């Protein structure tokens, strides 16, 4: 059940994103910039964790 639920949830999220895309590109820009910046910045936390290992 879980194996199907997660991808289906992601699919719904992506469908909404595609619909959202038509209306608000600036918002979508902010989402993608946030994903990239946060994920790379999170690596600083990972680096700190590795340092303290």
């Amino acid at each position, binding site marked *: 059940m879980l194996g199907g639920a997660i991808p289906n949830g992601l699919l719904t999220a*992506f469908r909404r*994103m595609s619909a959202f895309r038509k209306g608000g590109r600036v918002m979508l820009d902010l989402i993608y910039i946030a994903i*990239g910046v946060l*994920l790379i910045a999170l*690596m600083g936390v990972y680096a700190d964790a590795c*340092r303290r290992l």
Partner: protein
Amino acid sequence: MTIVGWSQIAIVLALVLAASIPLSKYIVKVMAGERTLLSPVLLPVERSFYRLAGVDETREQTAYVYTLAMIAFSVASFVTLYGLQRLQNMLPLNPQGFDPVAPDLAFNTAVSFITNTNWQNYSGETTMSHLTQMLGLTTHNFVSAAAGLGMAFALVRAFSRSASTTVGNFWVDLTRGSLYILLPISIIGALLLILGGVPQTLLGSFDATTLEGAKQTISIGPMASQEIIKELGTNGGGFFNANSAHPFENPNAWTDIIENWALLVVPVASVLAFGRAVGDLRQGRAVLIAMAILLVAGVLVTYWAETAGNPLLTALGVDPSQGNMEGKEVRFGQALTSLFAVATTSTSTGAVVAMHDSFTPLGGLAPLFNLLAGCIWPGGVGAGLYGFLIVAIIAVFVAGLMVGRTPEYLGKKIEAREVKLAMFAVLIYPLIVLGFSGASVLLQTALDSLGNSGPHGLSEIIYAFASTNANNGSAFAGLNGNTPWFNTTLGLAMLLGRFAYVVPVLALAGSLAAKKKAPASAGTFPTTGPLFVGLLIGVIVILYLLQYFPALALGPVVEHYLMLSGKTF
């Protein structure tokens, strides 16, 4: 397979080795900040960069600060490259008037180029302005490669120093790698490519009349300058969607040899430079021999499988004498195509001279395995060296377990912390590749992107995530990756494949640098001989072949047997 074909392969590899020896000496000097032949010209330029950025070149960083500097640089690079694509319609050097790149595609492309992947979900000739190509993409071809080289040398310094708190300065490594190593070779290489017929112009396109009288718009642009650093920096992002298979990017066998040489030369030289930097060239030689055996084994598999051909095509009446020529360029032939396919996936280049999707199942298996292992023989600029040194650490750990002694490598004791960090790095790859591939095969929106069904479709998905995760960027070509699902997940695979891998590597560098260098004793496991080479290869087989065996069995292996029984996908 023919003698002539193997001779072509041998000539390219010999040219790489011949150039790598002097280049390795030069790399060691540059990364140590010693004076070189180019210093009178480049030193003032280098110092002006430091003055402009407020960098003190004499001040080294701890591994943690080095990592933070790399992360800060990557964040800034990501935001500027994303913005450049989204605003290209308002910026100069857009002679064809291209629209802004779509947000999901801009995200994917920005991540792709800052991570040295160059996965392309777009056709450059119809999507990117000249400014985006030159200022955005080509610039990152230099700096992402130089960053990789810097990180590798942080690890090399950790081995060569005793009880040190620092591993180098990220900003200095980045500047020196770009300015002294990549830029001069690129200038010479671009001129050679122009001589070979690769265009270099700021014009956008021109119209031609075909023999049938139709009008055809032909895209041109600053190709030679992008082409050389695409290979030299093991980037792989082509000006055209067809990449190095396009006759403008790679017009003939001569340019093909230059490009094949360029994508191997810096990674090979870096390995020899590692040996020189740690004060024992034999250490670098042993690692290089292990890499070379794996590389040549891959070429052997692909060359054999492609020349053996596809029995289904033979049954249709296609002349089998040339082997499987589907998706290949006649001007390169089987041998150079096989070498390029394996070399581009053994390094993290990802440029292609043929469509890997059209290879026979076993012919495509070797490039796919190279990707799954993280492209480390000889690997990307810097990335291959630190990737293989991680394997070396695991290898000496395994040897230590077998003989019951504390393992050591290059005089540094390998203890629990180092092995944990090495395993963090190694295990992130299967987690990403198998995790995202598994999610994709369950999603109809992802399956709709496939060009083929059955095991070949599975190979297309695994190849895409393996390629992006290993920061390679080559595509199997049957998968349409330009969808919100793949643009986003492949982007995440690239980010995690680069940063989640290199963070523990740099932490490992910090840990090793702090240790005292112990002199070799009678109980030290020798890491320069054939036994160590065999152990390295054995560890790679155990680590990677077993990790991915189920995926490979369900993809190319089962497809091979189905092909023999007359079924295609």
